Protein backbone atom coordinates (compact mmCIF):
# COMPACT_ATOMS: atom_id res chain seq x y z
CA UNK A 1 0.00 0.00 0.00
CA UNK A 2 1.37 3.44 -0.90
CA UNK A 3 0.67 6.79 0.81
CA UNK A 4 -2.08 7.87 -1.65
CA UNK A 5 -3.91 4.58 -1.18
CA UNK A 6 -3.54 4.92 2.57
CA UNK A 7 -5.00 8.47 2.56
CA UNK A 8 -8.04 7.30 0.58
CA UNK A 9 -8.90 4.62 3.14
CA UNK A 10 -8.82 6.55 6.41
CA UNK A 11 -12.59 7.10 6.60
CA UNK A 12 -13.28 3.47 5.70
CA UNK A 13 -10.85 2.40 8.44
CA UNK A 14 -12.50 4.67 11.01
CA UNK A 15 -15.94 3.34 10.01
CA UNK A 16 -14.58 -0.20 10.47
CA UNK A 17 -15.45 -0.82 6.84
CA UNK A 18 -12.09 -2.10 5.53
CA UNK A 19 -12.14 -5.66 4.28
CA UNK A 20 -9.96 -8.34 5.89
CA UNK A 21 -7.22 -8.01 3.28
CA UNK A 22 -6.93 -4.18 3.34
CA UNK A 23 -7.01 -3.68 7.07
CA UNK A 24 -3.61 -5.27 7.90
CA UNK A 25 -2.03 -3.45 4.92
CA UNK A 26 -3.45 -0.15 6.19
CA UNK A 27 -2.14 -0.71 9.72
CA UNK A 28 1.20 -1.94 8.45
CA UNK A 29 1.65 1.16 6.29
CA UNK A 30 0.79 3.45 9.19
CA UNK A 31 3.30 1.67 11.45
CA UNK A 32 6.11 2.27 8.95
CA UNK A 33 5.26 5.71 7.52
CA UNK A 34 5.62 8.77 9.77
CA UNK A 35 4.06 11.04 7.14
CA UNK A 36 0.88 8.97 7.08
CA UNK A 37 0.86 8.69 10.87
CA UNK A 38 0.86 12.52 10.90
CA UNK A 39 -1.88 12.63 8.27
CA UNK A 40 -3.98 10.20 10.27
CA UNK A 41 -3.50 12.32 13.42
CA UNK A 42 -4.61 15.50 11.65
CA UNK A 43 -7.56 13.66 10.14
CA UNK A 44 -8.82 12.48 13.52
CA UNK A 45 -8.12 15.91 15.08
CA UNK A 46 -10.29 17.43 12.35
CA UNK A 47 -13.11 15.04 13.23
CA UNK A 48 -12.78 15.84 16.94
CA UNK A 49 -12.88 19.60 16.37
CA UNK A 50 -15.88 19.25 14.02
CA UNK A 51 -17.72 17.59 16.90
CA UNK A 52 -16.90 20.51 19.21
CA UNK A 53 -18.07 23.37 16.99
CA UNK A 54 -20.71 25.49 18.72
CA UNK A 55 -24.12 25.53 17.04
CA UNK A 56 -26.41 28.55 17.31
CA UNK A 57 -30.06 27.79 18.01
CA UNK A 58 -33.27 29.27 16.69
CA UNK A 59 -33.86 32.94 17.39
CA UNK A 60 -36.29 33.53 20.28
CA UNK A 61 -38.69 35.09 17.76
CA UNK A 62 -38.84 32.01 15.54
CA UNK A 63 -39.09 29.72 18.56
CA UNK A 64 -42.04 31.59 20.00
CA UNK A 65 -43.69 31.82 16.55
CA UNK A 66 -43.48 28.03 16.25
CA UNK A 67 -44.84 27.41 19.75
CA UNK A 68 -47.81 29.65 18.89
CA UNK A 69 -48.36 27.81 15.61
CA UNK A 70 -48.34 24.49 17.47
CA UNK A 71 -50.84 25.76 20.05
CA UNK A 72 -53.18 27.09 17.37
CA UNK A 73 -53.00 23.90 15.30
CA UNK A 74 -53.82 21.84 18.41
CA UNK A 75 -56.80 23.97 19.38
CA UNK A 76 -58.27 23.63 15.87
CA UNK A 77 -58.23 19.85 16.01
CA UNK A 78 -61.37 18.06 17.26
CA UNK A 79 -60.85 16.39 20.65
Amino acid at each position, binding site marked *: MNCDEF*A*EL*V*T*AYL*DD*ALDDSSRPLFLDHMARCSGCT*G*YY*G*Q*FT*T*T*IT*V*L*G*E*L*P*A*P*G*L*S*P*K*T*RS*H*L*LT*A*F*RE*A*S*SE*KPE
Partner: protein
Amino acid sequence: MSEGVVRLGGVTDFPPDPVIVAGLRNGDEEVFALLLDEWSRGMLRLARSYVSTAASAEEVVQDTWLAVIRAVGTFEGRSSLRTWVYRILVNTARRRGERESRTIPVSSVDGERPDGVPPERAEGGPEGAALAGEVRELIDKAVGTLPSRQRAVITLRDMEGYGSDEVCEILSISPANQRVLLHRARAAVRDHLAAYYDGKGGP
Protein backbone atom coordinates in the same frame (compact mmCIF):
# COMPACT_ATOMS: atom_id res chain seq x y z
CA MET B 1 -27.79 28.08 27.87
CA SER B 2 -29.03 31.37 26.50
CA GLU B 3 -32.46 32.37 25.21
CA GLY B 4 -34.38 30.31 27.73
CA VAL B 5 -33.44 27.12 25.92
CA VAL B 6 -33.84 24.05 28.11
CA ARG B 7 -31.50 21.18 27.34
CA LEU B 8 -31.79 17.65 28.62
CA GLY B 9 -28.96 16.09 30.57
CA GLY B 10 -28.35 13.52 27.85
CA VAL B 11 -29.95 11.51 25.08
CA THR B 12 -30.97 8.80 27.53
CA ASP B 13 -33.52 11.22 29.01
CA PHE B 14 -35.16 11.71 25.65
CA PRO B 15 -38.57 10.02 25.44
CA PRO B 16 -39.07 7.27 22.83
CA ASP B 17 -40.80 8.05 19.53
CA PRO B 18 -44.28 6.73 20.43
CA VAL B 19 -44.39 9.01 23.49
CA ILE B 20 -43.24 12.03 21.47
CA VAL B 21 -45.63 11.35 18.59
CA ALA B 22 -48.58 10.89 20.96
CA GLY B 23 -47.64 14.14 22.68
CA LEU B 24 -47.52 16.03 19.39
CA ARG B 25 -50.87 14.62 18.28
CA ASN B 26 -52.44 15.50 21.64
CA GLY B 27 -51.19 19.09 21.49
CA ASP B 28 -48.71 18.70 24.36
CA GLU B 29 -46.75 21.92 24.09
CA GLU B 30 -43.97 20.75 26.41
CA VAL B 31 -43.23 17.86 24.10
CA PHE B 32 -43.13 20.16 21.08
CA ALA B 33 -40.82 22.60 22.88
CA LEU B 34 -38.54 19.72 23.84
CA LEU B 35 -38.19 18.64 20.21
CA LEU B 36 -37.72 22.19 19.05
CA ASP B 37 -34.86 22.73 21.49
CA GLU B 38 -33.21 19.35 20.94
CA TRP B 39 -33.23 19.23 17.15
CA SER B 40 -33.31 22.78 15.79
CA ARG B 41 -29.56 23.41 16.16
CA GLY B 42 -28.67 20.41 14.05
CA MET B 43 -31.45 21.26 11.60
CA LEU B 44 -30.10 24.80 11.18
CA ARG B 45 -26.65 23.44 10.43
CA LEU B 46 -27.94 20.91 7.94
CA ALA B 47 -30.15 23.50 6.22
CA ARG B 48 -27.11 25.74 5.89
CA SER B 49 -25.56 23.10 3.60
CA TYR B 50 -28.13 23.96 0.96
CA VAL B 51 -29.01 27.64 1.38
CA SER B 52 -26.86 30.74 1.17
CA THR B 53 -27.43 32.52 4.49
CA ALA B 54 -28.06 31.71 8.14
CA ALA B 55 -31.30 33.71 7.96
CA SER B 56 -32.45 31.58 5.06
CA ALA B 57 -31.57 28.41 6.99
CA GLU B 58 -33.69 29.65 9.89
CA GLU B 59 -36.67 30.05 7.55
CA VAL B 60 -36.12 26.53 6.23
CA VAL B 61 -36.18 25.18 9.78
CA GLN B 62 -39.30 27.19 10.56
CA ASP B 63 -41.07 25.90 7.43
CA THR B 64 -40.01 22.36 8.33
CA TRP B 65 -41.51 22.56 11.82
CA LEU B 66 -44.73 24.03 10.40
CA ALA B 67 -44.88 21.08 7.99
CA VAL B 68 -44.25 18.68 10.89
CA ILE B 69 -47.11 20.25 12.86
CA ARG B 70 -49.45 19.78 9.90
CA ALA B 71 -48.32 16.27 8.96
CA VAL B 72 -47.56 14.52 12.25
CA GLY B 73 -50.95 12.81 12.02
CA THR B 74 -49.68 10.97 8.92
CA PHE B 75 -46.38 9.79 10.47
CA GLU B 76 -46.39 6.00 10.20
CA GLY B 77 -43.22 5.14 12.09
CA ARG B 78 -41.50 3.47 9.14
CA SER B 79 -38.41 5.49 10.02
CA SER B 80 -37.52 7.17 13.31
CA LEU B 81 -39.33 10.46 13.94
CA ARG B 82 -36.01 12.30 13.74
CA THR B 83 -35.21 10.82 10.33
CA TRP B 84 -38.71 11.72 9.14
CA VAL B 85 -38.34 15.34 10.33
CA TYR B 86 -34.86 15.63 8.84
CA ARG B 87 -36.06 14.31 5.49
CA ILE B 88 -38.71 17.02 5.38
CA LEU B 89 -35.96 19.51 6.23
CA VAL B 90 -33.66 18.29 3.44
CA ASN B 91 -36.44 18.51 0.85
CA THR B 92 -37.40 22.00 2.00
CA ALA B 93 -33.79 23.20 2.05
CA ARG B 94 -32.95 21.72 -1.35
CA ARG B 95 -35.94 23.40 -2.99
CA ARG B 96 -35.03 26.71 -1.45
CA GLY B 97 -31.37 26.33 -2.33
CA GLU B 98 -32.22 25.67 -5.97
CA ARG B 99 -34.42 28.73 -6.03
CA GLU B 100 -31.70 30.86 -4.47
CA SER B 101 -29.03 29.66 -6.85
CA ARG B 102 -31.15 30.99 -9.70
CA THR B 103 -31.62 34.41 -8.09
CA ILE B 104 -28.84 35.33 -5.64
CA PRO B 105 -25.10 35.49 -6.26
CA VAL B 106 -23.86 33.38 -3.34
CA SER B 107 -20.64 35.34 -2.81
CA SER B 108 -22.60 38.48 -1.92
CA VAL B 109 -24.48 36.96 0.98
CA ASP B 110 -22.32 34.17 2.37
CA GLY B 111 -21.15 34.34 5.97
CA GLU B 112 -23.90 36.51 7.36
CA ARG B 113 -25.72 35.72 10.57
CA PRO B 114 -29.29 36.52 11.53
CA ASP B 115 -29.74 39.32 14.03
CA GLY B 116 -30.18 38.36 17.65
CA VAL B 117 -28.40 35.00 17.46
CA PRO B 118 -25.15 35.34 19.42
CA PRO B 119 -22.50 32.68 18.80
CA GLU B 120 -21.94 30.47 21.82
CA ARG B 121 -18.64 30.98 23.57
CA ALA B 122 -16.08 28.28 24.12
CA GLU B 123 -15.00 27.70 27.70
CA GLY B 124 -11.60 26.77 29.09
CA GLY B 125 -8.23 28.37 29.90
CA PRO B 126 -7.41 31.60 28.11
CA GLU B 127 -4.44 30.47 25.97
CA GLY B 128 -5.69 27.02 25.08
CA ALA B 129 -9.07 28.53 24.41
CA ALA B 130 -7.59 31.14 22.06
CA LEU B 131 -5.76 28.51 20.02
CA ALA B 132 -8.69 26.12 20.10
CA GLY B 133 -10.92 29.03 19.13
CA GLU B 134 -8.71 29.79 16.14
CA VAL B 135 -8.75 26.18 15.01
CA ARG B 136 -12.51 25.97 15.44
CA GLU B 137 -13.05 29.13 13.42
CA LEU B 138 -10.78 27.80 10.69
CA ILE B 139 -12.59 24.48 10.54
CA ASP B 140 -16.00 26.15 10.64
CA LYS B 141 -14.97 28.30 7.66
CA ALA B 142 -13.54 25.29 5.82
CA VAL B 143 -16.89 23.48 6.16
CA GLY B 144 -18.52 26.54 4.60
CA THR B 145 -16.47 26.08 1.43
CA LEU B 146 -17.61 22.48 0.80
CA PRO B 147 -20.06 21.49 -1.95
CA SER B 148 -23.53 21.01 -0.45
CA ARG B 149 -23.64 17.20 -0.63
CA GLN B 150 -20.30 16.88 1.15
CA ARG B 151 -21.30 19.54 3.65
CA ALA B 152 -24.56 17.79 4.47
CA VAL B 153 -22.80 14.48 5.17
CA ILE B 154 -19.98 15.94 7.30
CA THR B 155 -22.53 18.03 9.21
CA LEU B 156 -24.62 15.02 10.12
CA ARG B 157 -21.79 12.56 10.74
CA ASP B 158 -19.09 14.64 12.43
CA MET B 159 -20.79 17.77 13.73
CA GLU B 160 -24.04 16.12 14.86
CA GLY B 161 -22.65 12.64 15.48
CA TYR B 162 -25.29 10.65 13.59
CA GLY B 163 -24.57 7.08 12.46
CA SER B 164 -23.99 6.26 8.81
CA ASP B 165 -27.27 4.33 8.44
CA GLU B 166 -29.36 7.28 9.58
CA VAL B 167 -27.39 9.69 7.38
CA CYS B 168 -27.98 7.49 4.32
CA GLU B 169 -31.69 7.42 5.10
CA ILE B 170 -31.97 11.18 5.70
CA LEU B 171 -30.09 12.07 2.51
CA SER B 172 -31.36 9.13 0.38
CA ILE B 173 -27.84 8.02 -0.60
CA SER B 174 -26.06 4.65 -0.63
CA PRO B 175 -23.56 3.71 2.11
CA ALA B 176 -20.70 3.75 -0.43
CA ASN B 177 -21.67 7.21 -1.68
CA GLN B 178 -22.02 8.44 1.87
CA ARG B 179 -18.51 7.30 2.70
CA VAL B 180 -17.00 8.90 -0.40
CA LEU B 181 -18.71 12.24 0.35
CA LEU B 182 -17.67 12.09 4.00
CA HIS B 183 -14.09 11.25 3.15
CA ARG B 184 -13.76 14.04 0.57
CA ALA B 185 -15.25 16.51 3.02
CA ARG B 186 -12.94 15.48 5.86
CA ALA B 187 -9.88 15.47 3.61
CA ALA B 188 -10.72 18.98 2.36
CA VAL B 189 -11.19 20.31 5.90
CA ARG B 190 -7.98 18.55 7.00
CA ASP B 191 -6.11 20.37 4.20
CA HIS B 192 -7.17 23.70 5.72
CA LEU B 193 -5.99 22.55 9.15
CA ALA B 194 -2.63 21.35 7.73
CA ALA B 195 -2.07 24.69 6.00
CA TYR B 196 -2.77 26.44 9.31
CA TYR B 197 -0.32 24.22 11.23
CA ASP B 198 2.33 24.70 8.51
CA GLY B 199 2.00 28.44 9.01
CA LYS B 200 2.43 28.02 12.78
CA GLY B 201 5.17 25.41 12.60
CA GLY B 202 2.85 23.27 14.75
CA PRO B 203 1.97 19.52 14.71
